């Protein structure tokens, strides 16, 4: 009986605990598939759309349905019973893309673009706490510092425009940072300083060297690339560090910002040993608000991570005009990033319509056309979200084999170069040459020069000449430097006549630095950042002005306002200027010299003054001394005189 009575409450207890477990378990199970579903959300829809595009395309024109389809599918998902998604999560989307442009010089240009779009609002005191594809570190930076736009690039090497054509995304050697702040920011300079410090931590770079001596506020260049109606340049800051080194430590945090890291998708190709063994390497992060839909009433945040690299024919290619993914990156592709809604490789085959220049394998039937840099280009497209792209070997290794070495690249319409002239260590002259190669059209360029204070520009010697005649700029903005406070800023709007060279010269004087202001290696010289040339270059074909239409990522960075021209930014070489350097061993020499003077001069004088002179008895000769010694030995005391 007792046992029976004892059993009953035990059973009750077990029952209670079981029911508790079940409740807990059921809550767990309801949470788990929700997360799972949200993760899988995009790949599913992506796969659907991929199938659709595969069905629709096949001809020359590849149609793009992704944008609308993805949105509809996502909307349907959300319309489903709200058990799975209690609160509507802000939608986000990730795309990855690789463009390969075989260059006539035998080199090869590869450009990666990764875009994360997020329909959220960081502004107006919104606390964004749940991140999915968008990196949290950057999201926090945006909301903490009220950043409207942020563009940062790290580049090693100089882009050779005349050999390689225009890059899809230009960047100057070293590090470049430009930021538009929201108009709610009261102390822009302090926010900028803090922001650079934080970014230096995120990207493992010496961006904390950005201070007032290398920051400028351009008045006409660097308009915002995202949407927005306010362009008060008080909220813009621009700075370059031309000497910034770029290496693996910068690539590591950059890769960590990607949703798939370097584990899957195109990012597996990013091996530092290959990427830095190249003629040109540039990696960048661009954050800006963009239109959510065609109406453009709400904004999304766009994070665009780009990486451009040019492999040298002789250095990386062993002199053979034959390239493959494996040869370039020492990896092949096996899958797309599962979080990406689109994952594509584009190969530029415009100069090779019939395959007479180079051979591409495996062959693809998918073609695409895009307006890039004022030209209509044709691309072979490999869609990584489809399994048949990888073939039976389950891996994709693109092979480009050149057949002929003939053929010319289309000459870029605009390019620029810069150098320092003069001799000696007192004065010099900066020459900037801007070439307009268009046979009959002139176009405007906006030149921005930011020169450190230790080169004192003689602004009265500024001349702008083209074709031997004075070319008067229609807009000049010059802000003189202040020693150790701010740099020179010179902005000029110049019309470049057709088929001409326009030369801008200005003389300068080299300042003397204080001895603590020199770098540890002053003999190396001091860098002056690249000039920035922004221009509206006439286009040969009508450009696409519809900013909301789906386009390949590489052709949709700069918004296009008119059909007849396209916007391009060109950077010149940075300058390396020698400053008069003192002899740093001078203090040591002075000490040595002083010691010598003291020891020899003063010492001997002191010696003469303090010594008491007395007549010394002449010392006995050698024979007498020996005789004395003998005498001592024999026991006679005393010495002989």
């Amino acid at each position: 009986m007792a046992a029976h009575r004892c059993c009953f409450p035990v059973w009750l207890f077990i029952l209670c605990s079981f029911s508790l477990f079940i409740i807990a378990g059921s809550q767990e199970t309801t949470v788990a598939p929700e997360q799972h579903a949200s993760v899988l959300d995009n790949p599913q829809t992506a796969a659907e759309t991929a199938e659709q595009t595969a069905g629709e395309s096949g001809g020359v024109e590849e149609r793009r349905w992704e944008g609308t389809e993805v949105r509809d599918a996502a909307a349907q998902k959300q319309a489903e019973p709200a058990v799975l998604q209690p609160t509507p999560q802000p939608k986000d989307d990730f795309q990855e893309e690789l463009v390969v442009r075989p260059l006539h010089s035998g080199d090869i240009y590869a450009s990666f673009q990764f875009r994360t779009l997020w329909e959220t609002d960081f502004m107006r005191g919104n606390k964004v706490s749940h991140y999915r594809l968008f990196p949290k570190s950057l999201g926090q930076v945006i909301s903490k510092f009220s950043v409207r736009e942020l563009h940062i690039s790290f580049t090693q090497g100089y882009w050779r425009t005349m050999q390689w054509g225009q890059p899809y995304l230009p960047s100057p050697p070293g590090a470049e940072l430009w930021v538009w702040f929201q108009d709610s920011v009261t102390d822009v300079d302090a926010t900028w300083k803090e922001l650079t410090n934080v970014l230096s931590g995120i990207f493992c770079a010496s961006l904390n060297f950005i201070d007032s001596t290398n920051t400028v506020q351009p008045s006409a260049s660097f308009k915002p690339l995202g949407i927005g109606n306010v362009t008060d340049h008080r909220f813009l800051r621009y700075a370059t560090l031309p000497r910034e080194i770029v290496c693996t430590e910068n690539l590591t945090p950059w890769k960590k910002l990607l949703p798939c890291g370097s584990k899957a998708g195109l990012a597996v190709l990013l091996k530092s040993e290959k990427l830095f063994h190249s003629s040109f390497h540039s990696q960048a992060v661009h954050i800006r608000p963009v239109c959510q839909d065609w109406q453009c009433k709400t904004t999304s945040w766009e994070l665009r991570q780009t990486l451009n690299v040019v492999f040298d024919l002789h250095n990386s290619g062993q002199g053979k005009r034959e390239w493959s993914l494996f040869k370039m990156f020492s990896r092949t592709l096996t899958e797309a990033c599962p979080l990406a809604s689109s994952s594509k490789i584009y190969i530029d085959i415009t100069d090779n319509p019939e395959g007479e220049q180079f051979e591409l394998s495996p062959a693809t039937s998918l073609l695409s056309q895009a307006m890039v840099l004022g030209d209509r280009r044709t691309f072979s497209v490999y869609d990584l979200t489809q399994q048949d792209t990888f073939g039976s070997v389950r891996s994709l290794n693109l092979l480009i084999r050149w057949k002929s070495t003939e053929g010319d690249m289309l000459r870029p319409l605009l390019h620029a170069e810069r150098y320092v002239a003069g001799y000696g260590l007192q004065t010099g002259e900066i020459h900037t040459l801007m070439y307009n190669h268009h046979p009959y059209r002139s176009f405007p360029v906006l030149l921005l020069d930011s020169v450190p204070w230790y080169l004192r520009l003689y602004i009265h010697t500024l001349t702008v000449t083209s074709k031997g005649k004075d070319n008067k700029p229609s807009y000049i903005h010059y802000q003189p430097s202040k020693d150790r406070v701010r740099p020179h800023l010179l902005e000029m709007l110049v019309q470049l006549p057709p088929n001409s060279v326009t030369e801008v010269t200005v003389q300068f004087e080299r300042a003397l630095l204080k001895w603590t202001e020199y770098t540890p290696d002053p003999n190396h010289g001091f860098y002056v950042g690249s000039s920035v040339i922004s221009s509206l270059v006439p286009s040969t074909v009508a450009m696409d002005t519809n900013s909301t239409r789906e386009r390949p990522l590489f052709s949709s960075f700069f918004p296009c306002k008119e059909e007849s021209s396209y916007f391009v930014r060109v950077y010149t070489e940075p300058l390396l200027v020698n400053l008069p350097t003192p002899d740093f061993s001078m203090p040591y020499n002075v000490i040595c010299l002083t010691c010598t003077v003291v020891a020899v001069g003063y010492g001997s004088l002191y010696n003469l003054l303090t010594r008491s002179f007395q007549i010394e008895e002449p010392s006995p000769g050698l024979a007498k001394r020996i005789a004395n010694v003998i005498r001592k030995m024999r026991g006679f005391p005393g010495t002989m005189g």
Partner: protein
Amino acid sequence: FTLSIYLSIYLSIYLSIYLSVCLSDSAGQFFSSGHTNNWAVLVCTSRFWFNYRHVANTLSVYRSVKRLGIPDSHIVLMLADDMACNHRNPKPATVFSHKNMELNVYGDDVEVDYRGYEVTVENFLRVLTGRLPPSTPRSKRLLSDDRSNILIYLTGHGGNGFLKFQDSEEISNVELADAFEQMWQKRRYNELLFIIDTCQGASMYERFYSPNLMALASSQVGEDSLSHQPDLAIGVHLMDRYTFYLLEFLEDIHPASKANMNDLFKVCPKSQCVSTPGHRTDLFLRDPGSVLITDFFGSVRKVEITTEAIDLTDPIKEVEERPANGDVHKEMHSYVDQLPVSEIIHQKPKQKDWHPPDGFILGLWTLILLVFFQTYGVKHLRHIF
């Protein structure tokens, strides 16, 4: 009666739980080393390509501590020059410690916190003492506390009582000792292991006076530290002898290994190093034989097991991310013209201060004169002049 039985059953259950809690607390020697976190400050102070070996020294220690579990967020790595992507490096993005490119100590996921011109005596001392500007990011800070074991490794060119930074400045052994004392007073470390690989390295730890410091050096006062082996393809010496054998020693250490500091003191005897490695333990309170290598080079986490059940089933309240004013801002946005030529040309230069227009001042004078003549007339002018 039945009630008492239930009570006794419940009591016995609670008692057994309580006992098990007590038992887990009694594992005292489990926390004997007294530290809960590990930090490392690894510094190469030499610039220029021919000092490749100093960067390789630092990176090999970095590789070891990272392999043994100290995360990048707890390592402050300072490299005074960029050897990996130097233009003279025949294999970019690599730094090798062994001949024939056998071991790449640079790795594929390195994070350098201070590099180039940032490596200065001032920054080094600021990192140690924690007196950094407020906006310095976390990765550039030594956020240690009184439960931290810190490994400090320095390499470069030094002399009797000083270490050169970038060929342009020096840190003296007195400054270094004072910095450690400041760290101790600010409770920034529990125990500190100091290793230096320079010429006359032992002179750098002579002046230490703070407790819980252990120091090792590659050479005695009056001795040079020598480099280990040149590589013909890279063209420079790859590593210094002391750190080379230190790396070989550390490569055999794994997180669970029981090697202690006495083993570390035996690294690189004079027959291998040519110089005489030195060590100093008089400031250290524990017996070096009881200090594991992983107390400083690794981050072996002590895990405390709790037997209390923590209820995690409470649903976390979702913060409403979208306020209701989502429909308020509905004006049409548009992209900005990148080069608005006419706008730029007609851009007004910014006016500095407001000043009255020129006509106004002229008018004012006219008014004054008019009032004057109205009141006095012309004939009174002679009274004035």
